[in-house]
């Protein structure tokens, strides 16, 4: 039952999304816009893995993203690794940060969110500190002109998106995912039912860190010239969270819908009426929260349509 569902989700959600993401650059030439869509699709799903399945809101999610970007860049600059291998360093950096921050999972609710935010800011302060210029280039920023390869890095970003979607489909259709949801609803009961609460949570936490680190690494590769404030911008966290929640978390399609609709609108307004851009966007978000608080997918559910 779970397995056939997983197959269905792979066929009808993962494959079409990846196909569209992979093929659109052939038809539409602003590849960077598409790239940012892929980045936010991945980040929103990463938020989904953590928040949707464990209830922890990673308000400083950008910390993993930024650390991934720097892990990648340092591996290219100092170890002269080829980009694909350097992505391994990006993943490693994010997972290591995840390990260091694992104790934060002892906190709940807003406490976790705020502590996570503080952790991401702390990472930014460390990376951009001029005392570390020899290692991180401090505030002077990264230039990776030597490995710049927009088409290849775009392809890799799509692959990471596929991996992330696959993970979410797995969570949605596996005992492990069910265990996570059980822990989210009531950790005491779940523990009594024989679920290792700490282990399952930590795993989801690391998965979500890994995803962000990888996509952060590709972001560094694609953008190739950037400052620390670029890859540690809190807007990455906030956008990813807003997109995921707008669509609806603990689903596969919710975050996808959120990114396509909201980031789509963001760009459409940004290009058509930039002067009122922030105003319209803010008002839109407020309206959505007030009138559609459980995400767009809840609307479909209300109409009796099951949304995966």
């Amino acid at each position, binding site marked *: 039952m779970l397995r056939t569902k997983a197959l269905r989700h792979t066929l009808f959600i993962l494959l079409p999304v990846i196909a569209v993401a992979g093929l659109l650059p052939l038809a539409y030439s602003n590849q960077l816009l598409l790239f940012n869509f892929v980045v936010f699709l991945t980040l929103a799903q990463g938020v989904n893995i953590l928040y949707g399945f464990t209830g922890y809101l990673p308000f400083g999610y950008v910390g993993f993203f930024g650390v991934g970007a720097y892990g990648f860049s340092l591996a290219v600059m100092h170890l002269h690794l080829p980009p694909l291998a350097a992505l391994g360093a990006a993943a490693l950096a994010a997972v290591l940060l995840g390990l260091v921050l694992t104790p934060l999972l002892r*906190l709940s609710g807003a406490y976790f969110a705020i502590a996570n935010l503080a952790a991401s800011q702390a990472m930014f302060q460390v990376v951009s500190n001029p005392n570390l210029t020899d290692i991180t280039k401090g505030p002077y920023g990264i230039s990776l002109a030597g490995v710049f390869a927009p088409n290849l890095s775009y392809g890799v970003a799509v692959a990471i998106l596929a991996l992330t979607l696959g993970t979410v489909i797995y969570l949605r259709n596996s005992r492990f995912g069910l265990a996570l949801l059980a822990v989210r609803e009531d950790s005491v009961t779940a523990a009594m039912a024989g679920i290792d609460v700490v282990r399952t949570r930590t795993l989801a936490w690391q998965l979500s860190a890994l995803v962000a680190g990888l996509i952060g690494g590709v972001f560094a590769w694609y953008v190739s010239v950037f400052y620390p404030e670029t890859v540690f911008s809190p807007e990455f966290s906030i956008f990813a969270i807003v997109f995921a929640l707008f669509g609806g978390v603990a689903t596969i399609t919710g975050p996808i819908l959120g990114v396509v609709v909201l980031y789509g609108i963001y760009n459409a307004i940004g290009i058509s009426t930039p002067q009122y851009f922030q*105003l319209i966007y803010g*008002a839109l*978000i407020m309206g959505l*929260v007030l009138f559609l608080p459980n995400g767009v997918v809840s609307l479909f559910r209300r109409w009796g349509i099951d949304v995966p």
Partner: protein
Amino acid sequence: MLAYAILAGLIFGLYFSLVGLGLNLVFGVMRIVNLAHGDVLMLGAFAAFWLFKLFGLHPVLSIFAVFAVFVAVGWPLYYLVVPRLLRAKDPEMLSIIFFFGLSQVIVALASIAFGSSERSIPGRVLGSGPYQILGQSFPAAWVVTGGVSALAVAFVYLYLYRTRLGYVTRAVMVHREEALATGIDVHRVSAIAFGIGLALSGIAGVFAPFMLGSVTPAMGVDINITSFAVIVVGSLGNPLGTVLGGIAYGISLMFMQTYFSSWANLLPYLLLITILLVRPSGLLGRKVRSA
């Protein structure tokens, strides 16, 4: 140098207690994360700026105007927004998003209305020449701001602990459902707390031009993160805790500026994380809120 850093940190920390106070009240009473807190503060700052520029109103007097207007706006805003948010599955998280939207709207409107350049009020308005405290000299603006901040904290303390309204407000803080069951008009109590919370942020804004160099429509973001640090280090829902959090923040900031200046912004974050891990309920918290 150390003595100066500690004294300066104390005064600066008192101001940051005021900055965190409104946020703390709103979170404590409603479990609502007001991500537009820094922007409300910014509005208070611009209110003081314009009142001074157009009418020559002294910032200390504009506190009253700001208080009245912000309570008057906050009260109905509560009924418009919060009950709806609280009905959702996860109001705490949803509020983060809602107030992010509100914050965008406020910043956009402020940029359109005021432009994006730096504004401030001359420091001499709050008194001329530096004051001597314990042999160290501090700007008059700092001393006045510190004093007003202390008064504001005392005001909140009296409101919470010495009035009937404050008593029920604390009941709502401890347990919203139980308060409802005992017949307390939870919404009315919360609406007042919400209004006062916003007004406190506004009042903190009145002094921002003196304590934070200058004000711009974009200043809110930095304020938010610091405010969260301050209220968490103290403890949520406790105004005295916020004072402690503010002072801990102020002193650690000044200490870092003195000895490891380029790392100055790191310590508050580390402080926040450490306190959360060691004592999640904050320095003065009673209830441990770990999962």
